[in-house]
């Protein structure tokens, strides 16, 4: 029977009351007396030499308080990359300085080279227009292939546009080459994983505040991880001691990765606040969001799959060029490498995997992790080449996958790409998918489509991903410069309600609802009496924030550990109150009782006692009831899934309509099925968007052609079908206390190849010899492919 509270209950999201009634507090909603406005002067050319910047006319304009240029930050540090990647030859990656404001050169359209602080936004905008910048336009480096061949560079001091040339697993390279050379059959596919603009509903916004009396700074900012932002600003960019800097990320309207990173605008508002002794606010407009939020994906890949006569996979070999844009954003070097290469064995027992990734600087916006981050790229390459192979060798695509699946008795399973999968059952997911998607009814639906003049296709996909992004030990080996644990403090207040301070940050995920379900279940009390505190470094323990589907698996585990400590201490207090021994105290439904007796005290009585410790055995028990735990798991978590999709293609126009989309996922245990379903829905929307419509286009001069919603297509409700979502076949994670795996990115990882496979199936069913179409499969592209076939 479904529960109505605690773990497993589909509780509605308590934060939605605030969000849906306009009572959210987003950064831009915060208004401070005496606040002034920052507006940035941004490059209109993709590559240019800054010859001079004359701010004198601008400085004399009404309301202008200060103007900053790159010169002002020449002495401070740069914004670093969080992962050090070594090239195949052992040399470290090239890591150019990323300054607060461009200095010497501008490197992409939108690169900020000056900032005006004025009394009002209008005045600041006017003054920005009056800045006379003499920027000599240089030839733009846009295309990755050209970039690698070019004799001029995004960063002159590096002398190459290649950031690194990484191999994984380098020791398998020769054996993989050999296996491919000798294989019975090799399927080859060249594909593009299209660049995406993150498009969070709330644009970035930062407010800098400085108190000269205490020398303390406060930064309100749109962040997914306020402690990481503070660490970067303190330790690398500005040198403000952490005890003098509070970073607060209040309600944040979506991030999808783009708000993980520290951006120069955050440093600028802090520097300006100090200089002026005023609160300084900057809010991005939508154009700035398009031009400067870290974009996602952008890989150009060649993948080969070697098979034997029976269809057993022998090896996957991948060569990828990954665009990192003009500067290294914080996770940009991890995304195409360890979040991608390590997944290139997929759900399969393939013995050999080799991945080569060349990261390339271009005069485009920085590219970094975006919902799924590397795993969508891996899944897309694998699941497309497997589908192509199935057609080439004449085997059913589901059978070919099943034949090569890791089987349930093989866990823990060491994949050929270097990960240890802890649990799963891919055949069971496939069975469930075929059932809930009514695969058996497909042929009948195909006939109906045909009667309407439409081609119906069925596409399938199996994915595995690594999330719950942590183990510090493992990511440290892989090049991470930070730890990826998380932390929680559970504070029981005197009257029995709880505040739970967490390092994770909720910007759409529903933590305020889900974490109390866990704590409430453990304590046997109403989750409504428990509140989550997040986003404020002065209130929460030093956690690492939310991305990589890590909140519940990592921070939730810290919450469990802290709650266990609370239970232990509360039992001691109860034992004291009941004059019994701790070992005899039992907790059930919020009541502590002495085993085998009717003596008991309620949770609330224990809480009160903790703070009114009259007659307390102070030598054994401290007053108070508050515990902190840091949690660092033993491994990633490995959600997996079987997806399918049915599309209808209009052969006259090339228009694709997704008719049915089924996602069967193994997320391990599920705390709130409604929240999980919502996360899957969002991910599917983004994945279908990537597959069909989202197209980030730079022209050869490095101008972003798709810089507004007039040209960048976001998927809309009528582009999307009703989804069939099933997470009933979970296999608990074996190494975290909740047995959970992480569900935030799965939909965006699993859906793109599913959709593409379905379109190819539709076209082939119509007699078109089309084997691949690059995403987004716009009507135009599908029509062109049909006509060239």
């Amino acid at each position, binding site marked *: 029977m479904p529960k109505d509270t605690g773990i497993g209950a589909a509780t509605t999201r308590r934060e939605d009351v605030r969000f849906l009634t306009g009572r959210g507090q987003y950064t831009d909603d915060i208004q401070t007396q005496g606040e002034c406005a920052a507006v940035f002067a941004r490059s209109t050319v993709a590559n240019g030499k800054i010859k001079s910047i004359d701010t004198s006319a601008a400085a004399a304009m009404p309301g202008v308080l200060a103007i900053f240029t790159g010169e002002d930050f020449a002495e401070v540090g740069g914004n670093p990359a969080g992962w050090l990647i070594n090239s195949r030859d052992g040399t470290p990656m090239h890591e150019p300085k990323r300054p607060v404001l461009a200095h010497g050169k501008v490197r992409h359209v939108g690169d900020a080279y000056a900032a005006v602080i004025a009394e009002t936004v209008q005045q600041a905008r006017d003054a920005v227009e009056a800045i006379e910048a003499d920027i000599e336009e240089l030839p733009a480096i846009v295309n990755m292939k050209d970039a690698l061949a070019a004799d001029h560079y995004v960063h002159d001091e590096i002398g190459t546009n290649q950031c690194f040339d990484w191999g994984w697993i380098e020791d398998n390279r020769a054996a993989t080459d050999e296996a491919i050379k000798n294989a019975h059959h090799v399927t080859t596919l060249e594909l593009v994983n299209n660049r995406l603009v993150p498009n969070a509903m709330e644009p970035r916004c930062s407010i800098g505040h400085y108190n000269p009396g205490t020398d303390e700074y406060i930064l309100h900012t749109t962040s997914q991880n306020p402690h990481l932002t503070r660490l970067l600003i303190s330790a690398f960019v500005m040198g403000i001691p952490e005890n003098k800097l509070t970073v607060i990320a209040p309600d944040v309207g979506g991030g999808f990765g783009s708000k993980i990173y520290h951006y120069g605008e955050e440093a600028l508002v802090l520097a300006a606040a100090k200089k002026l002794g005023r609160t300084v606010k900057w809010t991005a407009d939508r154009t700035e969001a398009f031009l400067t939020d870290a974009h996602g994906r952008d890989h150009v890949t060649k993948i080969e799959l070697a098979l034997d006569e029976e269809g057993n996979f022998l090896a996957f070999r991948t060569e990828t060029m990954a665009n990192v844009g003009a500067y290294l954003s914080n996770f940009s070097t991890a995304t195409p490498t360890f979040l991608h290469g390590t997944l290139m064995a997929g759900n399969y027992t393939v013995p050999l995997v080799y991945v080569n990734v060349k990261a390339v600087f271009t005069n485009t916006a920085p590219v970094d992790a975006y919902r799924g981050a590397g795993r969508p790229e891996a899944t897309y390459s694998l699941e497309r080449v497997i589908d192509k192979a199935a057609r080439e060798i004449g085997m059913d695509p589901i059978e070919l996958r099943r034949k090569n699946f890791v089987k349930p008795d093989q866990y823990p399973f060491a994949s050929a790409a270097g990960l240890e999968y802890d649990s799963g059952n891919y055949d069971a997911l496939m069975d469930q998918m075929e059932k809930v998607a009514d695969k058996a009814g497909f042929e009948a639906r195909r006939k109906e489509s045909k009667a309407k003049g439409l081609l119906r296709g069925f596409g399938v996909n199996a994915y595995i991903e690594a999330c719950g992004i942590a183990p510090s030990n493992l990511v440290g080996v892989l090049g991470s410069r930070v730890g990826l644990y998380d932390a929680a403090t559970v504070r029981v207040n005197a009257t029995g309600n709880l505040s739970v301070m967490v390092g994770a940050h909720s910007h759409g995920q529903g933590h305020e609802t889900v974490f109390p379900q866990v704590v409430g279940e453990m304590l046997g009390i109403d989750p409504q009496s428990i509140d989550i505190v997040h986003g404020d470094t002065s209130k929460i323990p030093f956690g690492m924030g939310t991305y990589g589907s890590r909140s519940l698996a990592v921070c939730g585990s810290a919450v469990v550990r802290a709650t266990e400590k609370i239970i232990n201490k509360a039992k001691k207090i109860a034992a004291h109150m009941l004059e019994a021994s701790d070992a005899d105290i039992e907790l059930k439904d919020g009541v502590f009782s002495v085993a085998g007796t009717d003596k008991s005290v309620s949770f609330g009585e224990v809480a009160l006692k903790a703070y009114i410790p009259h007659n307390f055995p102070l030598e054994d028990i401290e007053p108070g009831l508050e515990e902190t735990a840091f949690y660092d798991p033993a491994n990633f978590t490995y959600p997996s899934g079987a997806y399918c999709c049915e599309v209808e293609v209009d052969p006259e126009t090339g*228009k694709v309509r997704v008719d049915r989309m089924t996602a069967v996922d193994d997320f391990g245990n599920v705390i709130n099925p409604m929240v999980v379903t919502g996360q899957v829905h969002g991910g599917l929307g983004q994945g279908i968007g990537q597959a069909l419509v989202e*197209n980030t286009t730079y022209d050869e001069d490095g101008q972003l052609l798709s810089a507004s919603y007039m040209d960048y*297509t976001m998927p809309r409700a009528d582009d999307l079908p009703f989804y069939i979502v099933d997470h009933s076949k979970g296999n608990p994670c074996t190494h975290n206390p909740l047995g959970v795996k992480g569900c935030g990115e799965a939909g965006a990882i699993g859906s793109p190849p599913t959709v593409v496979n379905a379109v190819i199936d539709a076209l082939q069913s119509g007699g078109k010899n089309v084997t691949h179409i690059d995403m987004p499969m716009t009507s135009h592209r599908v029509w062109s492919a049909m006509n060239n076939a």
Partner: protein
Amino acid sequence: MYAFDIERPASVADAVAALGTEDAQALGGGQTLIPTLKQRLAAPSRLVSLSGVTEMQGVASEAGNIRIGGATTHATVASQVGGTYPALADLAANIGDPAVRNRGTIGGSLANNDPAACYPAAALGSGATIITNKRQIAADDYFQGMFTTALEEGEIITAVSFPVPEKANYQKFVQPASRFALVGVFVAKYSDGVRVAVTGASNEGVHRWSAAEEALSGNFSADAIADLSVSADDLINDLHGSAEYRAHLVKVMTGRAVAAAM
């Protein structure tokens, strides 16, 4: 946005007078103009709002024509014209989203003459008459290339008069991001012949497809155009579709419009 003054005249005469001042510009529903101002791409010193001019509002039927005031919103056309000219009502009902339809006006759309806009196809495809404060302009003379019309400085579209056809239909194949027309085709059958107007496709803006008109005037069925082809010369080639694709869509959408006409 730059600062500007705004005036709200109640009559066409007052509006024309207000537009006589330097750097003044008419404001219809603002669905094109306001985003342009926000981007600081235009700097009128004075906006003259036409929304309070009652004589420019509303829909009236007169002797085989339907007359729509220049400041009438798309939503009003969508809800009030369906009985007399369903193809026109459908077209209006599929412009933008509810907010755009509740603000945007037919006069603003025709004055702007965006090469991918819908109303220009209806006006040209119906052989409508554009009525201004000064004169009456036949649609064939009015549209003069993308974003270019016969309107003179300060001239206001006060109404548009559409001859009601026997049958008509508008097929819009949307540009997926903006949902304007990647290619839109308006087909209208009158007793004296068929008119076919194409929007979204051409560097020259909205235009008639005369070969199709001829073929359809003889035989109003999709088969009649089966042997025609559309040249890709001078068609728009952009990130949403090549000239060849647009040429192909012109024919497909024309066939579908004929089949759907009622």
